[in-house]
């Protein structure tokens, strides 16, 4: 053992080097402008975009350490606000309620959606007003004002909206494209209008994993919600521009104070078991959700909060009274899966297992439940007594296939029609786009990628730093590196999803690295030690900022002068690192020589 002692000492020394080297670099007051950027390891778009951002920021003197983490590690850190910056996709749905969740200070709790800890009392006030009025136009105007303020503050940088890339097997025609793509829980039109030229009457949609939970009250993921959107009807549906269209309700009125919504139901609507659907069922559904505090469904969280009472003056009229007005109340109540009272009044636990589906899965939608073979497939059949236009297909099968590659092979063979989620891997998208055996459909997806800052953590507490980063990022380059599977956005409310809810005149940060550098200098960042990374040194930055062009020539002189009184007597960084390095090298060589001699 003794013989190897020197070796162990050597190893220990090698481990210690980095600890010795780093603190010697700059004085404690002159903090380097660097941060850790978390990206989601399994999301190729997130990782690639993160790497491009790191390179772009390096050019303006910001050091970014990209760490690709698994969600089990990354999400808790975001929840606890224990991070510098993160870049990944967030999701949106047809109503921009996320606008409140992401920017209102009340949402900055552990796990809250205001993950950037953004606090602006003025924005809070505007959001409170916007989300408690029934007047849509007034709400829009408040949205615009809030968005302008937010864009000025840059709590995070919106990068791009991902594209939903779908491939259909040959012969299939007539799908409907809308935000979130041709196959999504908001798209009730595709399964009805799609048809096959060669007369195939079975459409097969691939799911990457099981569709559970099958209960429309517990469904809380895109797979389950899509299944529910086929089997259950809603009062309204969406047109390709996400405008509400009549569905179970043939018309509706909203009172002037925005606190009462009256739905007029279609007549002669039947449940899959043949019983008639009446206003009683609708009222029952709303009350059930509220009483059981149901966690699934699309907008149930808002429904529970808003619902005061439901009246059913006659079999085909439902009057909903709200506790307070809400600009999106029509969607909240309109896009709720309606369940049959005669079955659900016996169900105490709404979160029932899939084995109960043959008994419980009765809806009124265009397709009815046939069977579910666990882990394999879920079979639906056309409901011939449906009130609307009969779907062209007779059967719809949801098939579970794990791998994207084998899914595409099965689509090429015609065994599978298409898939539930758009393709995520740029490599596959590239291959699919040029495959003559496939029909490729591209739409706006519901995932918006953003670069988020922890606004409570230095240096992101400084507004100029956030703005400078916004100027320093070239979104065009990012999207190009991602093979064009994103659509650049500068808005915090997406025009592509919400139309005129987005502020068209929001301040934009066009790519401008010079401006970024200037902003950083104004904020007190200068490259003190000449390593290409800026340090926070307001004393050195301020006196020499008459104009951007001059500082370039002044900079060399800012390196040498004696340290300001506030900094400790430590000499500037690079020399010290060099000294430390040389010393350590000498020690290693000496130790090695000693060890060899001993042998």
């Amino acid at each position: 053992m003794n013989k190897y002692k020197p070796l162990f000492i050597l190893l220990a020394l090698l481990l210690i080097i980095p600890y010795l080297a780093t603190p010697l670099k700059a004085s404690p007051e002159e903090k380097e402008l660097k941060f850790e950027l978390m990206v989601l390891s399994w999301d190729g778009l997130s990782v690639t975009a993160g790497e491009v951002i790191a390179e772009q920021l390096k050019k303006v003197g910001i050091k970014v350490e990209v760490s690709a983490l698994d969600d089990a590690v990354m999400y808790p850190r975001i929840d606890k606000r224990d991070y510098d910056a993160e870049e990944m996709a967030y999701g949106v749905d047809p109503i921009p309620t996320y606008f409140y969740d992401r920017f209102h200070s009340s949402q900055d709790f552990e796990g809250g959606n205001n993950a950037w800890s953004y606090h602006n009392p003025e924005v809070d006030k505007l959001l409170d007003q916007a989300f408690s009025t029934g007047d849509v136009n007034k709400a829009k105007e408040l949205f615009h004002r809030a968005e302008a303020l937010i864009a000025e503050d840059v709590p995070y940088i919106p990068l791009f909206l991902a594209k939903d890339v779908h491939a259909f097997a040959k012969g299939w025609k007539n799908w409907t494209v809308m935000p979130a793509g041709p196959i999504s829980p908001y798209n009730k039109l595709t399964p009805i209008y799609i048809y096959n030229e060669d007369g195939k009457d079975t459409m097969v949609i691939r799911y990457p994993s099981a569709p559970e939970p099958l209960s429309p009250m517990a469904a809380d993921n895109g797979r389950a919600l899509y299944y529910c959107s086929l089997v259950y009807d809603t009062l309204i549906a969406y047109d390709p521009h996400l405008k509400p269209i009549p569905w179970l309700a043939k018309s509706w009125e909203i009172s002037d104070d925005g606190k009462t919504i009256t739905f007029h139901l279609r007549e002669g609507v039947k449940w899959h078991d043949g019983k008639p659907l009446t206003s009683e069922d609708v009222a029952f559904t709303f009350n059930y959700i509220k009483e059981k505090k149901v966690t699934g469904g699309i907008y149930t969280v808002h429904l529970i909060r808003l619902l005061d009472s439901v009246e059913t003056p006659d079999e085909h009229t439902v009057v909903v009274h709200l506790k307070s007005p809400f600009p999106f109340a029509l969607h909240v109540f309109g896009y709720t899966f309606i369940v049959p009272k005669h079955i659900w009044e016996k169900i105490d636990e709404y979160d029932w297992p899939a084995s109960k589906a043959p008994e419980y899965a009765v809806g009124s939608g265009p397709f009815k439940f046939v069977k579910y073979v666990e882990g394999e497939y879920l079979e639906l059949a056309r409901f011939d007594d449906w009130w609307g236009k009969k779907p062209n297909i007779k059967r719809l099968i949801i098939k579970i296939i794990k791998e994207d590659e084998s899914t595409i092979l099965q689509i090429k063979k015609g065994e599978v029609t298409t898939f539930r989620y758009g393709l995520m891997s740029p490599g596959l998208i590239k291959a699919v786009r040029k495959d003559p055996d496939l029909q490729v459909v591209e739409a706006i997806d519901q995932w918006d990628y953003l670069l988020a800052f922890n606004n409570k953590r230095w240096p992101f507490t400084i507004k100029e730093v956030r703005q400078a980063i916004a100027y320093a990022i070239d979104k065009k380059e990012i999207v190009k590196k991602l093979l064009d599977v994103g659509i650049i956005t500068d808005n915090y409310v997406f025009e592509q999803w919400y139309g005129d809810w987005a502020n068209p005149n929001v301040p934009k940060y066009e790519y401008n690295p010079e401006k970024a550098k200037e902003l950083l200098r104004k904020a007190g960042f200068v490259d003190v030690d000449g390593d290409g990374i800026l340090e926070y040194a307001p004393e050195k930055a301020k006196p020499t900022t008459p104009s951007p062009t001059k500082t370039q020539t002044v900079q060399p002189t800012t390196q040498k002068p004696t340290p300001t009184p506030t900094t400790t007597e430590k000499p500037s960084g690079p020399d010290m690192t060099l000294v430390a390095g040389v010393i350590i090298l000498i020690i290693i060589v000496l130790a090695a020589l000693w060890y060899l001699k001993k042998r």
Partner: protein
Amino acid sequence: MGFKEYVARRLLSSLVTFFLIIVLNFFIFRIMPGDPTRTIARDARLLPEQRELLKKRFGLDRPLWDQFILYLVNLFRGDLGLSFQYRGTPVVEVILGRRMLNTFLLMGSSIAVALVIGMTLGTIAAWKRGSKADIAAIIFSLVTYSIPTFWMGMLLILVFGYYLDWIPISGTITTGVEYQTFWEYAADYLHHMVGPMVTLVISFIGYHFLLMRNSLLDVFTEDYMLTAIAKGLSTRTILFKHAMRNALLPMISVMALEVVYLFSGATATETVFTWQGLGLLIYESVVKQDYPVLQGIFIFMALAVLTANFVADVVYALVDPRIRYG
């Protein structure tokens, strides 16, 4: 130490190990990063009271110590809790259903076939040691053993599933088919099993082949082999009656170790072919942080390994008397 005492001691140590595994199994998932409440109550917009109701349903509102006691008590009642991802379905049902059968059939048949082929090839190779056939077999087994199974599976899918259209690409049965008889169902199932089974057999052969070959080479140096040859017995009898039987001893322990595959499945192969077995279930449960299911599978796996080891120990003791006193 008599045989009975030996068995009793083995049994006792197995039981202690099992209890330790049960305890470890509970805490190891709580130490892992990630919060189980996040899996069930993932929506940040959920109202606090909704969150509480959800936590209560899965018993996550209780302190850890309480959860542990509950886990132990329920475990001995055969209740492994509710799955997070297959919401509301008991873990026992999730594990002991279709998935268990899928994995058992796939792994059982693959291991059996690989064992027979590997051992036969190993015996022949050992007998013709140094010949071209031997070297070719070694190279073949090293290559197949090192090929990643997912790649192998994808290759099979591409060639035999897509271009030649001989085997189905994914699943265990054809979707949306009503079977008239059980035999129709069985035929369809077996047709789907060809792909994953061939993949697994190819990847397992190498291991068994090399083990058998080495084990036999050891046996060949024994005196009784010389005697057998001297007696003028036929090559066949010498190989399969004298040598192979004695070389089987190390294979017993290998087989005992392979019992665990019956429960763990082969995640990569199952994923590539969407063969819904326990391996795929483990993978999905990890991704979705479905701790109850993971706990359940690990308990079954531990039970299988312990039982197999115990049986192997006993069989060894029966076969080879020296072991009892070792």
